């Protein structure tokens, strides 16, 4: 025991040491560490990749990209040392709001929500929301209006996703939300999607590594990238704006964009507008859209607007959870029975399955099912999600059922044998019913856990309750009301289940005494 504690303590110190070293080396190598200099903590998502921010292929402890160089430029202008902080793209707004970094630069879009909830810099890059379709559809599909009944993918929590949600109502297309900007294109190529709407910067980057699709140059919408700061940073914002304007004048910004091959004719026009002080509107949708942005509504009114979609997402969560649990129970019973009654080979195979599933993250299993097997079996997202949850929980359920089967006293099984019951009859009439009573309470607890774990399927583009809440929070720029609504809906679903579990435990307590 003492040896175990020593090993655990050593591990904790080693991990803490690695984390500290990682934090120090995560910053760009363009500026040497100077303890005396002040630091500019800037946030980005290296998972978003080039040309924004990515781990340097030559030295993964460094980050490179045009946003890295813009951060360097700003830090130099402020006389500070830049320090990179990795924050997932979907969480950047909240992290900046709570002060995790001084500024975020990671292809942050110039939206009404950002303008109303944060201190934002002047726009420093103009991009186009462009539509990509498969080669064969290039002539047939040229705009959102051509996509009625078809699936169109994009990155969740972006202007493009807002545009698609509005186009769902206007054109009857199906908006599909992704957690990253790589898989929409791979799914487009293999036919899971009919189109992708994303920034031209992302589309051009994907064209360099993949083929089979074309990108229409005509923009669905035009917007800009900005730097995002917490509201009290107005003074810092003004200084950053001056630095950016100076870099626009003296060509340093142009040099950065040319280096990363994203300079185009849109940029001189943007620079001219910024330097002249011409008002540049934020963008929340496509041209002709006349709805309100949620950012302009009160939080309560915005929440009321989103409530129906949260309720619909709750139904998705409930249906997914029920269907996955049914699958998990059926498979779990089979696995448990095989492990108790099967021969050595069957037992070894089933034990291997259970250990494989329990020993690997469910997220990895979902990715493998949906993306990894796509070349062989192209499962629809809902089916991959259902299978992923069902197969994962089947392993855990099987352990509950196996222990319940083993808990039935062996004397009863021997009594059944002397009375002439076959093994199947013994399982069906004597062992199974008693094991079911023992398993019911933990099984109900697992169902409550599955209800919450179902939020993981959002990585496969399924919009369930948590994902819908995240979308609402991103659009509102606050988690308070969306979080409370989401929690209330989860509780409304899980509390009755917990009550049923308690009731069944009370009713069948005798089975365990």
């Amino acid at each position, binding site marked *: 025991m003492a040896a175990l504690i020593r090993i655990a303590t050593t591990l904790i110190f080693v991990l803490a040491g690695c984390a500290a070293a990682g934090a120090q080396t995560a910053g760009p190598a363009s500026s040497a560490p100077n303890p005396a200099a002040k630091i500019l903590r800037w946030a980005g998502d290296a998972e978003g990749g080039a040309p924004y921010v990515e781990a340097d292929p030559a030295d993964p402890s460094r980050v490179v990209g045009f946003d890295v160089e813009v951060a360097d430029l700003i830090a130099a202008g402020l006389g500070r040392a830049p320090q990179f902080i990795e924050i997932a793209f979907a969480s950047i707004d909240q992290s900046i709001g709570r002060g995790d970094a001084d500024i975020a630069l990671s292809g942050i879009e110039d939206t009404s929500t950002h303008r109303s909830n944060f201190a934002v810099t002047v726009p420093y890059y103009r991009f186009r929301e462009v539509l990509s379709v498969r080669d064969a559809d290039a002539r047939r599909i040229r705009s959102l209006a051509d996509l009625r009944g078809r699936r169109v993918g994009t990155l969740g929590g972006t202007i493009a996703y807002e545009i698609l949600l509005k186009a769902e109502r206007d054109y009857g297309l199906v908006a599909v939300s992704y957690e990253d900007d790589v898989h929409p294109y791979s799914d487009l190529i293999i036919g899971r999607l009919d189109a992708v709407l994303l920034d031209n910067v992302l589309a051009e980057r994907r064209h360099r590594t993949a083929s089979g699709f074309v990108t229409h140059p005509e923009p669905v919408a035009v917007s800009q990238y900005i730097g995002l700061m917490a509201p009290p940073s107005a003074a810092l914002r003004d200084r950053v704006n001056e630095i950016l304007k100076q870099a626009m004048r003296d060509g340093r910004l142009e040099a950065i964009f040319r280096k990363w091959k994203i300079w185009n004719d849109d940029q001189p026009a943007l620079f001219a507008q910024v330097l002249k002080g011409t008002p540049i509107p934020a963008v929340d949708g496509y041209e002709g859209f006349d709805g309100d942005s949620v950012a302009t509504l009160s939080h309560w009114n915005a929440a009321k607007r989103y409530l129906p979609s949260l309720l619909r997402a709750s139904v998705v969560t409930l249906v997914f959870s029920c269907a996955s649990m049914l699958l998990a129970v059926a498979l779990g019973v089979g696995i448990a029975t095989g492990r108790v009654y099967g021969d050595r080979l069957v037992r070894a195979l089933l034990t291997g399955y259970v250990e494989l599933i329990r020993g690997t993250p469910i997220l990895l299993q979902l990715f493998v099912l949906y993306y990894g097997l796509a070349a062989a079996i192209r499962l629809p997202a809902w089916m991959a999600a259902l299978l992923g949850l069902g197969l994962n929980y089947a392993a855990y359920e099987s352990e509950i059922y196996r222990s319940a089967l083993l808990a039935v006293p062996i004397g*009863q099984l021997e009594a059944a044998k002397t009375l002439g019951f076959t093994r199947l009859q013994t399982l069906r009439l004597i062992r199974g019913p008693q094991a079911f*009573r023992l398993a019911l309470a933990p099984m109900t607890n697992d169902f409550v856990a599955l209800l919450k774990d179902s939020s993981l399927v959002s990585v496969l583009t399924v919009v369930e309750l948590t994902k819908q809440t995240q979308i609402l929070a991103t659009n509102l720029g606050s988690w308070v009301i969306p979080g409370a609504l989401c929690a209330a809906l989860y509780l409304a679903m899980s509390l009755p289940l917990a009550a049923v579990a308690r009731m069944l435990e009370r009713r069948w307590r005798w089975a365990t005494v």
Partner: protein
Amino acid sequence: MSTRQGKLAINDLEVARGGRVLVSRLNLQAMPGELIALRGPSGSGKTTILRAIAGLDPFQNGTIEVGDAKLEGGRRPDPSMWQRLHRSVGLVFQFHCLFEHMTALQNVCLAPVHVHGASSREAEQQARELLAELGIDARAGALPRELSGGEAQRVAIARALAVDPPVLLMDEPMASLDPSRRADLCVLLQRLTATGRTLLVTTHDDLFARNFATRVLTIEDGRVVQPT
């Protein structure tokens, strides 16, 4: 209670586990209607003999003939032999081993319906008669956890008798009973043998063995040391 004639013949039975001999060269011929008591200290092999006869544990050498079933040492019986064995012999466990999720009545009805193909109504009627004969018909609807030790034992006997085995094995039936219950059980066992059923009973109760058994075998270290 209808019965078939209980034939039991054990020849040179040898049971060993992990190199240790539990029963050695046991021979026993029982006539229909006999009540044979096996007595001896704990661990002497009494229960092992019953389990071998009931087909619960394999044995290495010798033969066991029960009714029209014949088990041979070192050989696994085929399914038809199992079927004949289970029609010929019943076992009442020391700790009863009732099915905990079923009432007393359901415990007794289960095998006649699912193993022997009786109709539910027929099985229930017979079960009620058995429970009445054993004096516990009032407890037919009780779950095993609601029964006293003596009641549970009589339900276990009724369950074993419900498939009408000509040979009945009982493991320490007196162990958990007070004196008056023991007397009741002795009377019951005599009634069971009166119609030709053979009973093989393990016991530590010398009084019972002397007064009620037609024969007493004393077992020590897996051997019969004192046939009476």
